[in-house]
């Protein structure tokens, strides 16, 4: 149920209540033994003027279905009546527009502040989207239950490392399997290589966890590495996890809630759309290698 202020102007004592409901149905407002009735017009609107300050009980009925909501009158308010309501609280990058869509129904946030709670009046899959120029981000929300509340956070991109910028978001970088190996971190790349004849693998992870509910993908761009021989640890793995994976314990993907394995140079992407918790993002393994970009979107 949504209540908002509507400045209808005009004169007279008491508050003005604009109720939105089902066209043709009856709406009654009751308080202290007084009852006023209206019929929703073709636009689904009904207006009560001159209501005394206090809590009014609003009841909508079509003869077979009935719903009652209370509203406190202290000024002019609008009220949306529906036999079904649920809410979706959305946060998104300030300055962007935000919409909530289901089929032909498009709800638009009233401002670009970056925070708004949508009231939806039917079940189904609602798509929440934010847009700023050519940037856009969407997420789906399944509404199934009366009174259901959901929260969605949208973000365009989180960059850990980008060639030319270096480390944008803190990463912890360590080599393992051969502490004599070379680790070289510049603004262009994170590079690891062996010394002598011993291979060295890498452990890279965000120093802090990331709220994965805001993102659908993790990407890494890697250069050519030593070779994809038949050993799990010799290939770089992009992963998300509750715990940091730092060494031999990661073999076989142990400790990784999800991973993608790179078997060649290029950009590799991991699907994280079903993660809605704070988790670590990391890269593990790979016999010598170079990473030039690591990011989420």
């Amino acid at each position, binding site marked *: 149920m949504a209540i908002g202020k509507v400045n209808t102007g005009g004169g007279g004592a008491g508050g003005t209540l604009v109720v939105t409901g089902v066209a043709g149905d009856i709406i009654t407002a009751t308080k202290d033994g007084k009852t006023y009735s209206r019929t929703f017009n073709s636009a689904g609107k009904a207006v009560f003027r001159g209501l005394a300050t206090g809590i009014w009980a609003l009841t909508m009925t079509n003869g077979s279905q009935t719903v009652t909501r209370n509203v406190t009158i202290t000024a002019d308010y609008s009220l949306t009546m529906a036999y079904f309501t649920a809410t979706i609280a959305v946060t998104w990058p300030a300055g962007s527009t935000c919409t909530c869509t289901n089929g032909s129904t498009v709800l638009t946030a009233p401002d670009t502040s970056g925070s708004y709670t949508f009231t939806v009046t039917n079940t189904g899959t609602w798509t929440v989207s934010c847009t700023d120029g050519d940037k856009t981000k969407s997420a789906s929300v399944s509404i199934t239950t009366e009174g259901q509340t959901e929260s969605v956070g949208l973000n365009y991109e989180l960059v850990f490392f980008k060639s030319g910028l270096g480390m944008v978001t803190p990463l912890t970088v360590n080599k393992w399997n051969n502490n004599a190996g070379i680790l070289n971190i510049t603004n262009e790349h994170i590079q690891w290589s062996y010394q002598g004849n011993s291979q060295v693998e890498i452990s890279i992870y965000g120093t802090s966890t990331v709220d994965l509910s805001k993102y659908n993908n993790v990407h890494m761009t890697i250069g050519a590495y030593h070779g994809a021989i038949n050993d799990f640890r010799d290939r770089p793995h992009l992963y998300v996890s509750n715990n940091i994976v730092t060494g031999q314990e990661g073999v076989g993907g142990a400790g990784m*809630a*999800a991973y993608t394995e790179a078997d060649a140079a290029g950009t*590799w992407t991991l699907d994280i759309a079903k993660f*809605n918790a704070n988790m670590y993002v990391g890269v593990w393994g790979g016999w010598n290698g170079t990473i030039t970009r690591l990011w989420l979107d």
Partner: protein
Amino acid sequence: MTIYIDNDFKCHVADDGTMTAVDTDAFDGKCAEYIEGYRLVPAGETWMREDGETFTGEMVSPWVDWATLDAAQREYERQQLAQYESALSEIEAALGVNV
């Protein structure tokens, strides 16, 4: 362990006659509900998510909300631990130790 993937790369613990067997360590110690909430895209294969994003294997990632799978796995481990402790108690009783 051997798991089975269908034509959408979703994992199964049993083959219905139409699936592809995959040998992987990724699900060692995991319960059936956890495994069957995952998708495994083998190396060289490509899968497209409904929003058009494409993913090249090998990729192991859930198609069910991960919190649900994690809860199932934790319950599975709790039950296993309870079984082990019960068995240990029986052994101790039989040996007459820690009674």
